[in-house]
């Protein structure tokens, strides 16, 4: 097991090297002069030159890459062009809202989608099943920014139950934080719920048709225990896998959701960086988000042994 984890950890290295190489080459292989594009339309040649020097574009390409990788290994993700602050500092400042939002979304999505998927599989081909699956198809089509505004309109403007926008940090109390992330978590969680509910249903249907389920039913196992202990645990591997796949949706969605709900997190940092064309920040965020995704996938692979003891590494 330990050997497996180490082997998998080592396997993430080439992936991250490709990511680093990719963001690095992006800066150099894009047609045109990136320094001029970043500087904007009405920049003077001196300003363009300044940015070129800040990005290190005036040095030979191999030297730039060696410096870049060396910095990355030292945990230096670069320096913002405009604020001159290290990217890592900026990320730390904006981390909490995004982390809270991501975790709440995950909890909300799993808490709603897994029971719905189980219900749909148990009541397969009935009205309940059709409604759950219809909801799932719809969830894939609704863009997160539309759901976000619809939720704000209904729950914040019309009903006045929750705040319209903004984020209350954890240090000001858990209730305020929970109230401020409730709507964004639901908006962001919708597509996630659709994905998880669909795969839960499919996986459960497969398991429910197995012989041991019929045996369990025949010996009189109560339905809840049958569904949860006997079926769901064995249907878990695809469900956990899809939760990992959904991480990509979550990260992309965070940028949009934070814009809709005016949450000062990493998504907003990204948007602000884009508008100022502050490429080092975007570069750093890509490395961080890709790293998170790779690690989550690793943890999911390891979790398989818990759900299915037949899987041994």
């Amino acid at each position, binding site marked *: 097991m330990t050997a497996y984890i180490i082997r998998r950890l080592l396997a993430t290295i080439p*992936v991250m090297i490709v990511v680093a190489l990719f963001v690095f080459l992006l800066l150099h292989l894009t047609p045109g002069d990136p320094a001029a594009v970043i500087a904007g339309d009405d920049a003077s040649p001196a300003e363009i030159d300044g940015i070129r020097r800040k990005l290190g574009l005036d040095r030979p390409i191999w030297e730039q890459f060696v410096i870049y990788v060396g910095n990355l290994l030292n945990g230096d993700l670069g320096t913002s062009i405009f604020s001159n602050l290290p990217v890592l500092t900026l990320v730390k400042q904006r981390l909490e809202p995004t982390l809270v939002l991501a975790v709440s979304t995950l909890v909300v999505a799993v808490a709603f989608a897994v029971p719905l998927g189980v219900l749909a599989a148990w009541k397969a081909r009935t009205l309940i099943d059709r409604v759950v699956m219809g909801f799932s198809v719809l969830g894939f089509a609704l863009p997160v920014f539309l759901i976000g*505004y619809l939720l704000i309109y209904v729950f914040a403007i019309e009903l006045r139950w929750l705040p319209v926008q903004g984020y209350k940090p954890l240090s000001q109390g858990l209730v305020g934080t929970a109230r401020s992330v409730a709507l964004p978590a639901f908006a962001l969680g919708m597509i996630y719920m659709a994905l998880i509910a669909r795969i839960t249903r499919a996986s459960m249907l497969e398991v429910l048709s197995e012989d041991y389920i019929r045996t369990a039913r025949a010996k009189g196992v109560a339905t809840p225990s049958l569904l949860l202990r006997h079926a769901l645990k064995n249907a878990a591997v695809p469900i956990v896998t899809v939760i990992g796949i959904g991480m990509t949706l979550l990260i992309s969605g965070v940028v949009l959701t934070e814009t809709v709900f005016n949450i000062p997190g990493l998504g907003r940092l990204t948007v602000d960086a884009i508008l100022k064309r502050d490429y080092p920040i975007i570069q750093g965020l890509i490395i961080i988000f890709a790293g998170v995704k790779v690690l989550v996938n690793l943890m999911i692979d390891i979790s398989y042994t818990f759900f299915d003891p037949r899987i041994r590494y």
Partner: protein
Amino acid sequence: MTAISEPAPVARNRRLEWIRYNPTIVIGSAILAALAVLAVIAPWIADDPLGFDPLNRLKKPSAEFTFGTDQFGRDVYSRVIYGARISLAVGVSVAVVATAAGLLIGVLCGYYRRVDAVVMRVMDGVMAIPPILLAVALITLMQAGLAIVIVAISIPEIPRVVRLVRSVVLQVRGLPYIEAAIASGTRSRIIMTRHILPNTLAPLIVQATYVCASAILTEAGLSFLGIGTPPEIPSWGNIMSTGRSFFQISPWIIFFPGVMLAVTVLAINLVGDGLRDSLDPRIARRL
């Protein structure tokens, strides 16, 4: 007499039956066809989408302004109708570019094992980057324009297509008829194009519909953030973006393009699901 007229009803029945078993394809295609028609006849059914009208700012939906107006007095209905052009064009272009590139790389990877090892590591790396961020990075470094947006959205879609095509090629490659083709001295190019390629088409078409849907959502998302399609072009994302600061008083600016976006993506997904079910009966029976 009867012998001649008999085949016709059978053929019609079969077609009716096909529609009955694939209602989602029919419904989805009908919606898409309607949208395509709207996009094409936009100049005849909509007013100038860029026409400023300071006297009619932020007007509620009414008989005169079906979908209301935005903060510049521009008619949201006209803008939404013109926006269909952008969304459909981006969706189709990205689907074509990403599947074509993915097909080429995937077949080469599946066929030449030495290329495979390197290219798949690159694909793993690209897949680890969230699509919207990758697009953002590309757009930040290049001057904005619709073509750049299409390329930027296509690149993150390619790895999934490559994986799909590659898995099919790997499956087919081991079959005796390919061995026979190699043994009889058929050139690699012919084996790839004539013997392997056709097998990838069915799953590729299904994948293309999902790429198309996801591209439309990504374009709208990027434009909504203000970094996608140039703001002077009325795309659904751009319209929603202009409505951002006014949504508490004029939610219609966001609502109508948003619903159109959802309906379009829903229609494409319905076609995709329907095609998947009818092309792969194994999954169809389970669902």
